[in-house]
């Protein structure tokens, strides 16, 4: 379970701008939600706080009972390594690694042996429709395929929480639809919590629930299923 409680973040010191003001959220395992909002409303800030990449000025983030504020930098790094999966708009697929190596990266960080990690990567590549492409290079792939690799990498180590920040921002509508469907399917199959941050209503519509970030609250927009 992911629980955000009274989460607050200000920028610019005392008297500065408050981006998030006492935001609450509670998500159960297997839930897949989309967070939408205007530009600059704090979507990326919220995501950074949930991922432990930034520290809140108030409130707490808890995942499966672990309060992130109790962890130091190394502790947060280990926590992300074991519990989180990321999908970014810019893919961040490393150009000098093969597709399988890119997918195996989170397992390597966990210290898994090369052979077992490569087997798992191979299975994940097959799950995202890239079977037999293990030895291929990122430069040989289209944008949609690169994002599939990123999704495989985000899920290969069975994380509890998958964060996707505008994952289809660089794709055409047709490919975007395919990638979003795949993301939802794989997150559900893994039994993880999924948070999709987007400003696209079409993308948001693929989630179980859509929440609008207003700065001081996450307001439900609609239920899609």
């Amino acid at each position, binding site marked *: 379970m992911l629980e955000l409680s009274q989460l607050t973040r200000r920028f610019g010191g005392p008297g500065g701008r408050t981006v998030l003001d006492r935001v609450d959220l509670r998500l159960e395992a297997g839930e897949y939600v989309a967070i939408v909002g205007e530009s600059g409303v704090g979507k*990326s800030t919220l995501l950074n706080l949930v991922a432990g*990449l930034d520290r809140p000025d108030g409130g707490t983030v808890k995942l499966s009972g672990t309060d992130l504020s109790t962890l130091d930098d190394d502790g947060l*790094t280990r926590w992300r*390594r074991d519990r989180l*999966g990321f999908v970014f708009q*810019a893919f961040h697929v490393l150009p000098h690694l093969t597709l399988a190596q890119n997918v195996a990266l989170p397992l*390597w*960080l966990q210290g*898994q042996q090369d052979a077992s990690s490569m087997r798992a990567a191979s299975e994940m590549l097959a799950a995202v429709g890239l079977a037999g492409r293990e030895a291929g290079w990122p430069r040989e792939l289209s944008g949609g395929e690169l994002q599939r690799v990123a999704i495989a990498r985000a899920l290969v180590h069975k994380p509890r929480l998958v964060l996707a920040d505008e994952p289809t921002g660089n794709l055409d509508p047709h490919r975007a639809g395919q990638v979003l469907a795949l993301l939802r399917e794989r997150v559900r199959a893994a039994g993880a919590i999924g948070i999709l941050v987007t400003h696209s209503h079409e993308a948001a519509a693929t989630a179980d629930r859509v929440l609008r970030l207003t700065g001081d609250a996450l307001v439900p927009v609609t239920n899609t299923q």
Partner: protein
Amino acid sequence: MRRALAPVFLGSLGARRLTTLLSILAIALGIALGVAVQVIHDAALDEFDHGMRTLSGEADLQIVGPRGGFDDALFETVALRPEVAAASPLLEVDARLFGDERSLRLIGVDVFRLGEVQPALMPQPGEGQGRLVTLTPDSVFLSPGAMQALGLALGGTLTLQAGLEPLALKVAGGVPGMAGQQVAVMDIDAVQRHFGLRGRLSRIDLRLREGLGLAAGREALAPLMPAGVQLLAPETARAQAAGLSRSYRVNLTMLAVIALVTGGFLVFSTQALSVVRRRTEFAFLRAIGLARGELMRWLLAEGAIVGVVGGLAGVALGYGLAAAALKLLGGDLGAGYFAGISPRLAFEPAVAAVFLVLGVLAGMAGAWLPAREAAEVSPALALKAGGDATGLAGARRHPGWAVGAAALAAVACLAPAWQGIPVGGYVAVALLLAAGVFVLPQLAANLSALLAPLRAVPIALARARLAAVPGHVVVAGAGVLASAALAVAMAIMVASFRDSVDDWLARILPAELYVRGARAGSSGYFDAAAQARIAGTPGVARADFIRHDTVRLSADHPPVMLIARSLSPDGRELPLVGRQVKTSSPVWISEAVADLFGYAPGDTLRLPLAGSPHDFVVAGVWRDYARQSGAIMIPIERYRALSGDPLANDAALHLADGETASAVAARLRERFGAQTLELAQAGEIRAVSLRIFDRTFAVTYLLEAVAVVIGLFGVAASFAALAAARRREFGMLRHIGLTRRQVGLMLATEGALTAGAGALGGLAVGGAISLVLIEVVNRQSFHWSMDIRIPFASLAIFCLTLVLLAALAAVLAGRQAMRQEAVMAVKEDW
């Protein structure tokens, strides 16, 4: 560190092949030079040491004197002492081959005494020669090396020069114990007779009575030594001889270290920019769970790998260079310290390991700052900012640090030499380089301010960027600064040295024509009759004769050259430096004697002449670039009166009006025979000396060129990496209407400003380093001073060329990024 992550980081090295290769090459070059210098000298020293050991044989102590020898009456006194079990007298002559410029080490021995102390020197008569042939005065015995070098065999004739006459000797056998050395052995009495050294010995080797300690033996025998004759342990003599070349070796090694540091700078440039390019990659890795420390360790490992590969290549290249240099230049790289030996190269695992470690350290040192920078970046910010090259902005201006480093450098210069090595000077050089790097951003800002009146958009953009990202100036400019500083320092030092040597030659060679009994060796000399004949040659207005000998002023130092020549009471013929003193019994000491023995003008100097001590007053200090161990000038009349030695080695001939040097030289050859004398005009000696000087420094010019090329590679690598990282910026600029040419002008301005700051810093730092080299390093290593001369015109041309080349490198490096379609370049931002 998880080994599984190796492809993430090492793959990156492979992906930027060119810059990785350049870094490896730079390190390899530094290592190769260091390894070559070290192994060549180790090989030469080993062989030299082996030769000295073989020569000293079983001796516990050696009695040594000046080059002209000492009275052989000492032998009987010492040999009869109860402390001495065996004593063997030796007389060494550096004998010139008649009609040939080569010389041979000729050792006169007493075969009846030899066996117990120096069995390796025992001559072995050839077949059918009979044992007594060792005592015949016209028989000589050659070591296998000498036989081979001279192309002689048993029964052949060896013709040496004795005085001005040929001396034909029959090769009657060999010296099998001296394999590897080029020596000739003959009966000591014959050597004394043939070479005008009656009653003289140059060494007595002693074996002490069984059970008597070295210290006790020395204590008992030392009081018997006449003035100028010393009792040394063979190890001391060997160490003194080997110590002579130490400064030369250390200085060459330091040049290699500077090359290595330049390599480290290149690693720094390429790593720093690779880190800037990979900011989002690292941010992503940090986001998915790579710890800060591990990221830093992996980036250091990248530097270490560059160092290992560069180090291995450097060691291999170093041995190749060493083999080639040994073949071409000899064991002392042409410096003349180890004549007559043939060193063999051997692989030295310890040397290879040390240099490999140095290579790794250079690679890691270059990677350290960028690695720290990468580890400290906030992943959230870096992911948001994307891949733009805004990194290293944190490297702000540090004028205070620069002043601190320069002040520490000044303090380091005050430190005395450590075991003859100018450690303080080298530390000062490193600190000055650091000061230059700290002051770089400030310099770039000042230079940039000079361009403020220019309103062109590309120039304004270039100025704005350098002001916003001073770290970039450090990264790209540090290599230029280091290489320019090295080149400027060496240029000033070499120009000062060359001018000073030229002036010195003019002062030291006032006559028109010089005559020598033998250029190499001491077997050629002029006796009184020969001197009279030379002086009486038509066309000679005045002949000044010069006698060379050595004196031992202390047991801790090698012998000092004693030069007796005609001198005015105030020594005005000499290139004097500093204070002078008027005295009735003057000697003039070289700067090396002043430094090594602590004498100053006005001090009393006790000189051992013909076995007796004589007091002189130091009237002044003169500059001598020829003798690193020191030299003392004494008026020849006084020398002759005190030593009773009437001989001379050289003559300086002043010609009568209207006479030409070539005509007088022809008359002298007619009188003495074409093969006996060596004749040279002052101009020829000067030209040859300067040619040798230029050849010696050729290797430093090569190093300078390499350093400058490395510096330019650094600029090119930096700008190539930055240009690739800034493709979106270029795309945006092209979108809003900048032409390709304008983007090129912007890059050229950035390159020129960066290199300009590097070149200006290099000029200032190089100037300061040249002062350290001249006043501290040279003075403490070789004990010679020089007048400072700055080659302004060539330095200005050099710096201007460097700036233009850097601007060109920046434009060429950015061309690839500019070529990209503007629309494509900003695609990621849609």
